[in-house]
């Protein structure tokens, strides 16, 4: 079996390639950009000398490059997405890039399964009560334009994939992870809070943090891909034993570095968000609308999460949350020590 992985040298991508190799996949085509950092993939090449790890160099922003990339593969894992930058660029590098990949798939082989990594951010939970449990049946966002650029592009990306699947009928497996974390990832998710100058605004309070340790997430992707599907399958992905935002932040401070956290209770955050949104409109955008009541309700009101569907097809959390956090904090702690030395 030959697989294609887009975003293969990224944080989750390289973890997925590693797990694919560990589970016995022998032929992996890694779609990489010209000049991108392939250090982690190079290490895997050394570690798995009998496997064929092919670097397919190109960009998903072109019409031509994806055509060659999907040729001869049996399954596509689509992980490439833009995590930051200007909204138009994020859209171009995520949604338009996905369109080019989809066009290549339906041109070359419209029957190969596509495994897509979406996000919890595609759900529209602003109007749902606090503590509402998010399942795969939870409605998707109705107002993506009111969300942050990342949520906007991930919502659009998934919508596009579903449209193509309806038109062409290829098997589509969508995984919606929560907060993917681990060494080489980001230290603190926006669901915990935001750094503002020297102050860390702790916005998550006692909300459950839907963590997904990067290797567990890779396992979930492989489990879902191996499960037979004819149309569309959608799975939420997060670990068990989830900590609260508060306890995660405490552990981070204990193990990695001291922050200056300023806890903002949700009712106060809503008040601030209303003020920020009002000022943004009043001043015609002099300051960005980082907080709006709508965005805040989606991220910080507090939901519960359900991963029973991915478990029902055989996924089990391999790395316990305590161990995942320990590895992550050890990594960031080493970086902190290095930078202060």
């Amino acid at each position: 079996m030959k697989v294609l992985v887009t975003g293969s040298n990224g944080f989750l991508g390289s973890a997925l390639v590693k797990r694919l190799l560990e589970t016995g996949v022998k032929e992996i085509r890694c779609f990489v950009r010209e000049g991108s950092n392939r250090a982690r993939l190079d290490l895997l090449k050394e570690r798995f000398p009998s496997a064929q790890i092919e670097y397919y160099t190109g960009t998903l922003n072109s019409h031509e490059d994806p055509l060659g990339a999907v040729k001869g593969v049996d399954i596509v894992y689509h992980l490439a997405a833009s995590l930051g930058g200007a909204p138009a660029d994020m859209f171009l590098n995520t949604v338009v890039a996905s369109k080019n990949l989809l066009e290549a798939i339906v041109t070359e082989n419209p029957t190969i399964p596509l495994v897509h990594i979406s996000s919890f951010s595609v759900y529209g939970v602003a109007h749902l009560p606090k503590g509402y449990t998010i399942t795969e049946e939870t409605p998707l966002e109705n107002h993506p334009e009111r969300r942050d650029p990342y949520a906007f592009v991930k919502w659009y990306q998934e919508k596009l994939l579903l449209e193509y699947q309806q038109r062409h009928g290829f098997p589509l497996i969508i995984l919606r992870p929560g907060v993917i974390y681990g060494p080489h990832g980001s230290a603190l998710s926006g669901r915990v809070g935001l750094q503002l100058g020297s102050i860390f605004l702790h916005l998550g309070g006692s909300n459950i943090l839907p963590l997904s340790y990067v290797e567990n997430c890779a396992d979930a992707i492989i489990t879902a891909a191996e499960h037979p599907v004819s149309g569309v399958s959608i799975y939420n992905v997060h670990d068990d034993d989830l900590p609260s935002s508060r306890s995660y932040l405490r552990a981070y401070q204990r193990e990695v570095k001291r922050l200056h956290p300023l806890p903002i209770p949700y009712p106060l955050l809503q008040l601030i968000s209303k003020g920020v949104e009002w000022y943004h409109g009043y001043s015609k955008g002099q300051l960005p609308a980082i907080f709006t009541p709508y965005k805040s309700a989606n991220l910080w009101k507090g939901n519960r999460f359900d991963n029973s569907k991915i478990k029902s097809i055989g996924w089990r959390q391999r790395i316990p949350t305590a161990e995942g956090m320990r590895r992550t904090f050890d990594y960031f702690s080493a970086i902190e020590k290095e930078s202060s030395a």
Partner: protein
Amino acid sequence: MNQRLRVAIVGCGQIADGHISEIQKLKSAELVALCDREPLMAEQAALRHGVAQHYEHFEELLEKERPDVVHITTPPHSHLPLALQAIDSGCHVYVEKPLTPHYQETTRLIRYVEEKRKKLTIGHIYYFDPPALALRELVEQEIIGAPVHVESFYGYNLSGPFGKAILGDGKHWVHQLPGKLFHNNIDHLLNKVVEFIDDERPMIVAHGEIRRTVRFGDARDSMPDELRIMIQGESTSAYATFSSHIKPMAHFLRLYGTRNIAHVDFVARTLVLEQEPTLPSALGRLLPAFNMAKQYRRQGWRNVGRFLRSDFHFFAGMNELISRFYHSILHDTDPPIPYRDILRLSWMMEEIFRQLNHLEEPS
């Protein structure tokens, strides 16, 4: 002419977001439609900004929407054909910088717009930032005196969103421009110089180099990121610096006149004057520091006032330029940027890139 201009934008990349926001603030215009040859790009911009119509094909937009003005925010190679098409449909055009990739094309476009009695402007937005406008007032009041020398500095952030896009893609359109990274940016460096050097063909000496150490093995490796330019006119000289490495990223203009030296800081949005000491000896050396502190304090409070009046936006210059351009259309006056300056700047850029690319001098 309608009292409220119907405006359309073609090209829905990063800079189009700025245009959309600024047009939507104006009472003199209504943004009616967006266009991008990638329909998803047009759709996302329309959805995020609440624009009613979006199109994949420019001719369809022109035919159905009948705009009075078209903003062209596509990559530079497409500026000329799109501008000609818009002008042929009876539109005035605001074209993002660089106007076109070549002086010959710029000349053709300017002649065409004049011949068709339409108006054109180019995205020289910093030229209309509040401190730049204040400088022009000082020049008109002859406070600076006759310009002797100009120093223009433009710092560029290669780690910013656009810099990342350029360095992340060896096939990015910036790499196809004759002047590569400089071609997309030094309009902002030179438009402040052109204003004070009146010569048609000043003497230019340009030097570019690559300071980055990371190599990709493609077009990105031949993209210079540091540029120094000497310009000598008959009565005024200039020195222009483009840097991707100097930190903090500065953006300033120093105008050296026969009476005073003006320093315009486009980042801090300040304008201060260095003046002749009025007292002799050591006392004359003591006072300038206090004089400068007083000027900066005054400028700082002026900016606070602007902020409190919600008049301190990132794209203040773009808003002013668009307002003036629309005003020139509605009242049939001269456009805000003289065509002669646009042409002279285009020639300067062509000459700079000729030197950097070691090409023969045109006969």
